[in-house]
């Protein structure tokens, strides 16, 4: 049982790390602010989600697992709203030039 949980953790956390790498590569290679924003938020949120789910089997207490989920949801929500705000700022400043 322990081994199965560890394997799940390794697979999910590795996938999360891979998405973080993909997000960083997108960040470095994409041509324009909006595309970089897209790569950053989508891929890093996915990376964080996979890491959170990978960590869930390793946490002993139920409160800890709950905290992990709450933190993930909070970062998701605020990340979504803030990326909308950033995109608005980009569009507004783009219209001026």
């Amino acid at each position: 049982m322990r081994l199965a949980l560890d394997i799940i953790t390794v697979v999910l956390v590795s996938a999360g790390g891979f998405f973080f790498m993909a997000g960083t590569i997108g960040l470095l290679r994409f041509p324009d602010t909006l595309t970089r924003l897209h790569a950053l938020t989508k891929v890093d949120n996915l990376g964080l989600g996979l890491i959170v789910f990978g960590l869930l089997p390793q946490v002993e207490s139920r409160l800890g697992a709950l905290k992990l989920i709450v933190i993930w949801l909070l970062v998701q929500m605020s990340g979504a709203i803030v990326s909308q705000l950033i995109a608005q700022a980009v569009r507004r400043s783009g219209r001026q030039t």
Partner: protein
Amino acid sequence: MTITDFLLVAAAFVLLMVAIGLARILYGPADVDRILSVQLIGSGGVAVLLLLSVGMNLPPIMDVALMLGLLATFLAVTFLRDEANSSSISPSTTEER
């Protein structure tokens, strides 16, 4: 390699990805690109801290991740303020105050 070592390596890897991403963002031509770094630190830093919390078996580190997630949001809003204010004036006005 135990699961703890794996989690610590994963934390270091995500941190490295965040570091590389930061380099690009802060180079970015417009001010808005720099604000992307707030998002990056937000989801990346939270991922690193959560991995460290489970890897070092110190649950209070999750509180630091919670604080980081919230603060990244506040800081993004604060940093966007000038962008929003400067692009909401019409080209005919010369002063902001």
